[in-house]
């Protein structure tokens, strides 16, 4: 019976319903758009926090001072302080040494190509895939190929044992017209040292800064620059457990933990505890976990999140008020019908239920259409802020539908109180 009445009443006053629906569509699409962007980044961040592997960056302590202004590094010590290459072996002595899946040292030196033009190129020395010996662990293969499986080479990887083979980064190769098999002569740019003849064995694609450099075995970079046995930084890949309450607490500093918590934290393979142990093992180094998403898109979204809340509230109030005025008119117009229902014995709440379900239905439809519109809007925003499209998350749909229905209900709640004030005798006589 109720459903029958609802169906009949729903198709009355179509123009007004259309208006109400479009109000909700507007609000919902706005909310969807902002929410899609926020959720996309939020999900990436939470996946990063919950992943079972993480990368840490190991740098000399004095270089850990952030002196970056507008993307330019002003730290005077940058590139001047080093870690000892042999110290890196100590990271296989920490409590969680088995969880260190691999590491790669880096030494970036400015170099010049001999020949016409004498182009200045950065030369990055690293391990590609090298057997490193530790006490009790006769074969530990480590290097950029082990920790960055997504690095791709067109051609061959250089041999770590030789000092006459390099990879050319894709951008650099494009600029200088290099290809696999080319021969180059490289010289240190800061001091006159012996030039080295090298062969390009392949073109490297990483998606990172290495694409603009020559990537060489560490020994070559050390020899060319005279920094024997030194490295600037190291990338460490560790198997970790997802972050949780304890590790978040520990992030505020190890002092905030009591001794029991400290033990549990130390003996759990959190990124933070592994970083802490690396610093203990190599006292001259500072270890920082690299939260890639959190560091880039996360900061932007953190800022627009507040904006999102404000916009949502504004949209909520604005469309709620719109719905509310439409509802008043509806009730006034249909007062005779309400009077009749009451005269036939309908309780107040039954009349309420009819009108509220009607507006909830309007909210549902408006919310669904608004989701579609908002998804498109999100792509536009995504393209203009991050320069990439945003994937749509289905979770947005139920949330938006719930919000739209809430808007519709909130808008109708106040005017529907008029229903109680309608007396059957009065309205049926047409006095009110």
């Amino acid at each position, binding site marked *: 019976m109720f459903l029958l009445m609802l169906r009949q009443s729903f198709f009355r006053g179509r123009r007004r319903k259309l208006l109400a629906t479009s109000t909700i569509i507007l609000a919902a699409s706005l909310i969807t758009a902002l*929410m899609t962007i*926020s*959720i996309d*980044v*939020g*999900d990436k*961040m*939470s996946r990063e*926090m*919950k992943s*079972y*592997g993480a990368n840490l960056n190991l740098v000399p302590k004095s270089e850990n001072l952030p002196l970056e202004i507008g993307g330019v590094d002003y730290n005077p010590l940058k590139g001047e302080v080093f870690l000892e290459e042999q110290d890196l072996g100590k990271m296989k002595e920490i*409590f*969680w*040494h*088995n*969880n*260190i*899946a691999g590491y790669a040292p880096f030494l970036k030196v400015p170099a010049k190509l001999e020949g016409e033009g004498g182009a200045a190129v950065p030369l990055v020395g690293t391990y590609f895939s090298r057997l490193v010996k530790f006490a*009790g*662990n006769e*074969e*530990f293969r480590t290097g950029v190929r082990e920790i960055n499986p997504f690095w791709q080479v067109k051609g061959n990887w250089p041999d770590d044992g030789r000092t006459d083979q390099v990879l050319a980064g894709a951008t650099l190769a494009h600029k200088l017209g290099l290809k696999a098999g080319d021969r180059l002569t490289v010289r240190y740019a800061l001091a006159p040292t012996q030039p080295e003849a090298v062969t390009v064995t392949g073109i490297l694609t990483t998606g990172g800064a290495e694409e603009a450099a020559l990537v060489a075995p560490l020994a070559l970079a050390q020899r060319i620059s005279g920094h024997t046995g030194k490295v600037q930084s190291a990338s460490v890949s560790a*198997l*970790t*457990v*997802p*972050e*949780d*309450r304890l590790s*978040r607490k520990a992030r505020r500093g190890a002092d905030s933990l009591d001794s029991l918590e400290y033990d549990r934290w130390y*003996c*759990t*393979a959190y990124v933070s505890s592994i970083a802490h142990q690396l610093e203990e093992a190599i006292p001259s180094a500072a270890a920082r976990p690299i939260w890639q998403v*959190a560091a880039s898109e*996360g900061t932007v*979204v*953190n800022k627009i*999140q507040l904006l*999102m809340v404000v916009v949502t509230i504004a949209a909520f109030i604005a469309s709620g008020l719109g719905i509310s005025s439409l509802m008043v008119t509806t009730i006034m117009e249909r007062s005779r019908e309400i009077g009749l229902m009451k005269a036939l014995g309908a309780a107040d709440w039954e009349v309420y239920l009819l009108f509220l379900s009607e507006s909830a239905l309007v909210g549902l439809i408006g919310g669904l259409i608004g989701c579609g519109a908002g998804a498109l809007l999100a792509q536009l925003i995504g393209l203009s802020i991050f320069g990439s499209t945003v994937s749509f*998350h289905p*979770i947005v749909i*139920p*949330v938006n539908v719930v919000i739209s229905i809430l808007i519709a209900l909130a808008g109708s709640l106040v005017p529907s109180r008029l229903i109680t004030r309608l007396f059957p005798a009065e309205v049926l006589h047409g006095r009110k």
Partner: protein
Amino acid sequence: MLSYFVHFMRAFLPLALVAGMLLPALRRSRTGEAGRRLMGAPAAGLAAGVLTYLVALKLEALTASRATLFGLGLTVALAASAVFLARRRREPGSLACWTALCSQAALAAAAMFSFLAAAGEEALSATAVLNSELILNLGGILIGFLGCAILVPVCAELAERSPSRRLSLGLFLMGLLIAVPWGADLLLALMRLERIELTSLRLSVVAKVGKYAHLAPYGELAILAALAILIWKGRSLPEHAELAALEPAPRRKTKSLILRETRWLKSALYLCVAIAAVLGFYDLYASRPPRISTPVRLTPDAAGLIRIPMAQVADGKLHRFSHLTDDGHLVRFFLINTRSAGSPGQPRIGVVFDACMLCGDMGYLQNKNEIVCIACNVRIFVPSIGKEGGCNPIPLRHEVTGSEIVISARELDKGARYFSEVVSIKVKDPVSGKELINLKAPFREEFKGRIYFFENEKTLEQFRAAPERFAGADPARNFRVQGYRQA
């Protein structure tokens, strides 16, 4: 999502049910007052629960505050009931009302506190930015809230239609289901704070109650369902002929009343079943830790050696085996090729016990290419299996001869103390040589980590006097802390 729903239900189900069941009585005793006023007591209770939780979190005294809260709740509810029972003849109305309100407030405070404490164990979200997980978890709480909100009027309708004696019995049982876990918690806290003496009886009561406390929501739902079914059974529907004899208007009215009652009863039953099903799914399936694969039982040959062909275990999968020691300990170990599939050279097999020095004998599990320690969820770096340190499995000493891996039963026996699983087998009394069943032997004695079983006290005394004579010269079994020292 699911876990938040379950936490919410576990905490708030008693409150919703009790509040709903008391509602008709409260309405009757306070005629003339708006029903809205009755919400005051639970609301105050909820606020008190939040406040207590926040203070407890600040002071890092969750357990103590929980016990205090439960104790206070119990005292208030009991005191109010006692006063009511003693003086109900003289001034029944208002006193009953106060009792109900007091217990509601106590329940609300406890519910809020336990929900916040349970939810605080898990993170609502991994980051501060809005994400799917956060929304799902909030959705779980919202659905739980809606469920409880619907339960209140449903309960009230059932209470309205139940005879008062039956309703009292239902409320009493419900109170029992709530009060017993609270009491156990209080008892435990008092024993911890050394206010009362710790006895094995008290401890076993607390442990038993704690073990079955998660079943309380099912009991509460069962009470609700029983009330609904009893009303269903007990109601007398007018015959068809009777209805036909009525005037059209009263007939329609009667029909409508019956329809409405049926709907209330049905919705109560459906709700009970749905909530119980979700709780059951969580308890039986979703909250279970992952299980290890069943180990293959191996028996050593006459020389006490277990031989495993290398080709059988070189495929990169985790191969789990077990060995039964003389005293019934089941020792698990596994073999895995630690060289990745494509790499050249001989396979290098890691041979390890299925136990961790830190986490115990929960075991390890292969999840696609990863080996996971079940207890602490750490991923184990596969090439490092067979080496000590971190959360790695305890290495097992073995030999590689040609294409076989040879493990001696003696080495496995040394690791028996890492495992807690004991199987019922036939053993011999080392002194008299009589055959016994290990789990049923009247006397037992541990020596060098091995358990010996005795048929009577005499043989036990003989053994105690000179254990070396009967036990043989095998070296002692390792303690778990010695695990990494062995290899």
